[in-house]
């Protein structure tokens, strides 16, 4: 009896094992990536949280307190830098998104080389862009020289301040220069994946090119636009070196302010800096949450519209 039961039992056991392996396969494949991101990014955030709450300091164990957050938020410079960050990120994201939709439509039927040329800034390090824009737009830059040569201005004093300026013109120009090609690239990829039959159908039903764009193409592009602008917003909002080098000294963005606090010679300001950094991350996470909420809503309105 036992000899009959034994192999059957083994078979059942091996089947359960095989099923378990089959079901956990995607998780096993994701495990290395998830654990590296989890340990580095998640772990780093957690350690930052502990430090900001005073669980331990550089000097030894401490005690739980919200002192760091109180100190961080009571500083008016935090609020002005937060405002500045939002201003830059919102304006730059909105402008580059709108311009990218236009550029993508423009490039849709353009040849490969034109498309490639429009993506030139994509693989360029931000610091190179900063250098180029400084040399182009500074009061002694190339454009000021051209204006002077043309007699439009008399001295470099007449040239408007476009870098390290209060209105952050240089900063915005840099972000537009760098991010428009990025969003355009994504939108072009989405456009190429669209079935042209939808637009042909709309035209056949009597839509003008403009109506067709507004009622058919743009809604189909919407998921791509949303995710591209999410990435760009997140990037600009947390960008450090660009506002550090191109922004005005008197109006810092949040990341620059966080960095200044962190590298302050007064080491007791560290928990405050970390609390600020966490606030920065929390805002980005909140933006992702809003994005998800918007896309979930959009998806429930029109389900199965995208076919990728």
């Amino acid at each position, binding site marked *: 009896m036992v000899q009959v039961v034994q192999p059957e039992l083994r078979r059942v056991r091996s089947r359960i094992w095989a099923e378990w392996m089959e079901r956990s396969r995607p998780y096993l494949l994701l495990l290395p990536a998830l654990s590296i991101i989890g340990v*580095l990014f998640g772990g780093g955030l957690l350690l930052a949280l*502990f430090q900001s709450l005073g669980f331990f300091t550089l000097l030894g164990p401490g005690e739980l307190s919200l002192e760091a957050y109180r100190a961080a938020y009571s500083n008016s410079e935090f609020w002005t830098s937060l405002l500045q960050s939002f201003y830059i990120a919102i304006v730059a994201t909105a402008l580059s998104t709108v311009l990218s939709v236009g550029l993508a439509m423009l490039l849709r039927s353009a040849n490969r080389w034109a498309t490639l040329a429009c993506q030139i800034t994509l*693989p360029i390090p931000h610091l190179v862009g*900063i250098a*180029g824009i400084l040399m182009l737009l500074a009061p002694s830059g190339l454009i000021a020289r051209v204006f002077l040569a043309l007699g439009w201005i008399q001295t470099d004093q007449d040239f408007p301040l476009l870098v390290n300026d209060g209105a952050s013109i240089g900063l915005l120009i840099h972000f537009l220069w760098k991010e428009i090609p990025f969003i355009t690239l994504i939108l072009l990829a989405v456009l190429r*994946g669209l079935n042209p039959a939808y637009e042909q159908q709309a035209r056949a039903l009597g839509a003008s090119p403009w109506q067709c764009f507004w009622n058919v193409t743009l809604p189909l592009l919407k998921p791509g636009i949303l995710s591209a602008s999410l990435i760009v917003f997140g990037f600009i909002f*947390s960008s450090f070196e660009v506002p550090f080098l191109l922004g005005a000294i008197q109006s810092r963005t949040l990341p620059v302010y966080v960095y200044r606090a962190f590298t302050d010679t007064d080491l007791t300001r560290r928990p405050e800096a970390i609390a600020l950094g966490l606030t920065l991350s929390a805002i980005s996470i909140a933006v992702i949450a809003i994005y998800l909420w918007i896309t979930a809503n959009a998806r429930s309105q029109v389900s199965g519209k995208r076919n990728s």
Partner: protein
Amino acid sequence: MPRNALILLIILVLFLPFLPLLVWSVAQGWFFPQLIPQQWTLEHWQQLLSASSRIGEGVMQSLAIALTTTVLSLLVGIPAGRAMGLMEFPGKPVLKLFLLTPIIVSPLATLMGIQFVLIRLGLSGTLLGVVLVHLMPTIPYMTLVLASVFANFDVGYEIQARSLGASPIKVFSQVTLPLIAPGVAVGALFAFLISWNEFLLTFFVGGGSVFTLPMILFTLLQGGNNGLIAAVAITSIVPGLIFLFVASKALQNEAALGGLGSV
């Protein structure tokens, strides 16, 4: 015709910042308000190549870090991309979002949080430490690119190969890998470029002793040697340009980058 003229104008504007860089890199004492430098020189390039400038060392460090980062993110990203691109499983959207947070959320808090751990582990100020933190942005991008590569891959090829007698390892090396190779190349170039261009992570973890090209450029930009800045800037865009030309075909192709449109 006005359409093409508009495209041409946009291209010109996009290329504009490169113009002063190119001129400065070969100009000698290009003082305001000269429109064109009085004298041309190669001294910035000579300075760049001279051993004392440490820029050559920076190129080597940048290369070493970017290559190691690329290889590691490939090893991690291929299985992750397969799971994300080919499989449906509970919790997939949440895990995808989690994987992508490092490219959307500022790394500043994380960097400040782990700094003392890296110091204690002796990783702060080392190439290995820098590689480790560079994985934070490269793994998400790699996974994203490979997920769309796998989403366009027909698993029927693997089933076919198995039935013809290929073991799972042989299937991967002789069938799957050759078929996804173009997409893998794009992902690798992407990861290399992200690492090569990365500043903030290196700045925080490098501790002033790892000098990649962006670190050198950042330091130079706070000085005023425009000629050398321009030469270093031009040097650091070389891999990017190579990327653009090599990957131009793939950039046209929805398979490799369409994934970015559906984060």
